Each structure stands twice: as C-alpha cells, then as structure tokens.
C-alpha cells in the first residue's frame, strides 16, 4: 500500500494505492495521523487505486471520521465495485461522505 498527499487550497488530498487490510492498516493509520498532526482539517481520500478494503481498513476510516467530526471534513471518492459493496454492507456508505469523482468531492468544501 502507498499513500501520496497533495494540497488544494485548504484541502488535503490523500491518494491511497493497494489494499487497506489487516496488514496495511497500521501504516495507513500512521500516515493519516501524521496528516492530522500537520493541522489538516479537510481531508479528501482518493480510493480509485484501492483494490479492496477489509474491516481493518474500515476502522481506520471510522477513526478519521470521528476525529474530524467536530469542525473538519472527511470525503471519499473513486470507490471500485468491491469497496463500494463493503461500504454498503457495513453501513459506511450512509455514515461517510462518498462521492463518484474528485471534482464532486471537492465541491463546496
């Protein structure tokens, strides 16, 4: 798994590539913690290169959403069919802000 970040005005875009599973989630958590520690409050995660996500990866997303729930924003876009299915099954589709494209995810942020 690889994580690359860039900024767009006051929004931090985080591109994740690979899988978000029990093996990679500690590394993803650490990277996202670092981004939060740098003061980012509006975070958009690009899922278009995420192959699959398991409950370990969902926990990382949930932790991020909780930490940004007061005065921040977490948005996701580019989920493949399987990631979308996992989000739907777990109920995460309704509790996280999921968008189809980067432009839609950035709109009004």
């Amino acid at each position, binding site marked *: 798994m690889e994580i690359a970040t860039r900024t767009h005005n006051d929004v931090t875009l985080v591109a994740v590539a690979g899988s978000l599973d029990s*093996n990679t989630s500690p590394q993803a958590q650490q990277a996202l913690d670092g981004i939060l520690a740098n003061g980012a409050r509006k975070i958009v995660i690009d899922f278009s290169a995420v192959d699959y996500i398991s409950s370990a990866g969902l926990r990382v997303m949930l932790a991020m959403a909780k930490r940004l729930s007061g005065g921040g924003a977490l948005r996701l876009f580019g989920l493949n069919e399987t990631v979308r299915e996992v989000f739907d099954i777990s109920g995460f589709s309704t509790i996280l802000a999921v968008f189809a494209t980067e432009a839609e995810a950035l709109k009004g942020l």
Partner: protein
Amino acid sequence: MEQNVHAGSPLGNGFQLTIEPDRGAVARANAAFTAFAEANTVPAPIRRSLNVALDELLQNTIAHGFAGRQGGAMTIAVELGTDRLTVTLTDNGRPFNPLVTAAPDTARSIEERPVGGLGIHLVRQLMDEVHYHRRGGRNVVVLVKRLSGGKRQV
C-alpha cells in the same frame, strides 16, 4: 512454507498453500491467492471479495486461535470450478467457529457503533456460502463464491 500448484487439470484449477500463523502470513496468503486468481482470469470483483474474506478469517485465526500454542499451521486450498470458486481454510488452532458472532448494528451512528463482529458480517455478505466444521482436531471454514454466467473469461 509449502505450496503446490495444480494448473491445467481438465477438472479445473486449484492451489494449496500452508503457512505459519506469523506476522505477514495474511499478506502472503492474499498475494498468493491474487496471483492464482489473476493467472486464471477470475473476475476482479470475485477475487477482491475473497481477498477481504481471507483477510478477515485468517487474521481472526492468527489473533485468537494460536495464543500460547506452538506448531500452528493454516492451510488455504483453492478450487476453481466452471461455476464456482471454493476456498477451504483449515487450521490446527483452538476450536473456534467464526460464524457464531452477532451481526453488527449498521444502523447506529459512528459514535455509538462498536466495531467487533464487522469482519464476519462482511464475510457472510460477500460470500454465497460459508460453512464451518470442526473435523479431526481442526477448524475448517469453506467459502464459496459463484462465478455468475459468462463473467469468467476463459
């Protein structure tokens, strides 16, 4: 680590992998499964669903099945038929039926939601069949994913 690959059999393809339940075992199992699935043109959504199920179940076994035990071993046996993909997970850890856990309440809000049980819920929903047996002192979990008509490119 032992790995046997049987490819090109007229009855279908399969492979078997036995791994020690150490750190990195789940990643090795999933990498081997992905390589097999891609070599056999298993549709990506089906392959990914199994990747998730393997992560949940193998991680669960490593975390709970072998604590304080030596000589742990997990075997992943994959059988690709014409209409279904069957993955059988066998381990010699303590008796544990992963299917006997309550489904999470996915209607609750982020703050009040516990995370336990979510992995097994995903496995049940992503697979077409999930079976558990305790057989010969081993835990056996069988996962079945149907290959829907014409999706598999041969």
